[in-house]
């Protein structure tokens, strides 16, 4: 198990390989469809400091606001990453992102981006909302909450020992590509193709 702490240097990101299991501690930023679209169309600066050598988390959390107005995460598992495929590589490059956490993996455009920027794709367990929610220790701040709604807002938060597996690395490796190719062979056999 590799301990990873933010900010993550390019060198550290490049040292990670497909199959490595990591425990991530530090600041991460949730971003989904509306956020990625915005980051590409408007390249806003408000999120820059949080993303430099930082981590994007594909997640739309369930959030609680207490009487003092403090936010906390009730459930916060990953959302499907492939929807961000059109944007991800450019976002990583624009903001020097070192890791993207999500589920389901991403396509060739992102794989290329990771190689270029020096970043990795980390896979968390999809659906493990309650468990991951507990690993989010603090919500620092939120952007675009009004405009985008709870699931789509940028939540900047602190995690501790968040378990993930590197499934795409900066060397062109992708577990998703390998599994899909292997299962396609089996599927063709089963279908008699």
């Amino acid at each position, binding site marked *: 198990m590799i301990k990873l702490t933010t900010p993550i240097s390019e060198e550290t990101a490049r040292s990670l390989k497909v*199959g490595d*299991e990591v425990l991530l501690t530090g600041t991460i930023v949730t971003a989904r469809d*509306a956020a990625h679209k915005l980051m590409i169309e408007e390249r806003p600066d408000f999120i820059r400091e949080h993303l430099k050598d930082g981590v994007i988390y594909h*997640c*739309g*959390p*369930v*959030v*609680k606001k207490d009487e003092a107005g403090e936010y906390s995460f*009730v*459930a*916060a*598992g990953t*959302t*499907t990453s*492939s929807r961000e495929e059109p944007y991800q590589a450019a976002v990583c490059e624009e903001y020097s992102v070192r890791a993207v956490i999500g*589920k*389901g*993996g991403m396509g060739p455009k992102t794989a290329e981006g990771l190689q270029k920027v020096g970043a990795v794709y980390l*896979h968390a*367990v*999809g*659906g*493990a*909302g*309650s*468990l*991951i*929610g*507990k690993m989010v220790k603090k919500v620092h701040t939120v952007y675009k909450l009004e405009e*985008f*709604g*709870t*699931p*789509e807002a940028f939540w900047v938060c602190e995690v501790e020992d968040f*378990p993930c*597996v590197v*499934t795409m690395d900066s060397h062109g490796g992708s*577990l*998703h590509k390998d*599994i*899909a190719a*292997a*299962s*396609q062979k*089996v*599927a063709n056999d*089963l*279908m*008699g*193709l």
Partner: protein
Amino acid sequence: MELKKAMLELMRRATTDLSKDVEDAVKQAYDREGEGTPAKNVFGTIIENIGLAREASTPICQDTGSVIIYVDFPVGDSEKKYREAAEWAAAEATKLQYLRPNAVDPVTCKNSGNNIGTNAPYLHFHQWDKDEVRVRLMLKGGGSENVGAQYKLPDTGLKAGRDLKGVKKVVIDAVQKAQGQGCAPGVIGIGIGGDRVTSFALSKEQFFRKLGEQSTDPDLAALEKELYEDLNKLGIGPMGFGGKTTCLGVYAGKQHRHPATFYVSISYTCWAYRRKQMIIKGSEVTYD
């Protein structure tokens, strides 16, 4: 019994307390995987998460899904009161963080903030002869919904003809294409026949069945069994990490089709397979 409170409790149970048949299937899948594999670790995490959600009464998954409700009610009862109770309960459950606000206007892209909107919650009514009410609730995740698919037989590319062999092929194709995207291992609902609309509806209604419960139609029961075995040979595994369990169950249903059409619809639900029902008899409510 206050209907709206009962409805809220049904939602709380569905989102926090995974049904035993599903939990058992996940535990068996955990036992099947080899020590130290990513697949085993994933199942370990899932099992831990299920226990934690139940204990803390928090959502199993942060995507608490689309709220889908099927009501069977006796003659003379009114639909309105169920709709009102469902809307109240959905809004209340959102406030209590049992549900994430998941109703978005597709034109303005505004989230209603309380899970209420046009056809949200989605309610389906059916009158029956019993003197009790059955309310069945499904919380259907969006990620797994996106990997559902509809095929029109024959399908030349897959060499799938208008028979059960053809049906099998398209289901294998759909699950292969889904990979881990729908939070595998999934449960597969198949609707054979009908038109485009009813075919998908039939495939999704299968999810109200229990895992391990076979179709009463012998041909479909055989299809379910064969597909269950074949799909688990694909090696996609939990989250698409590779492994022995790609699906937890397969259900198939059929309905008559127009002579010119042959649709096969495949609905996919993730392992966070949340559905519960309640029976209301007089002032008694029982949940399952």
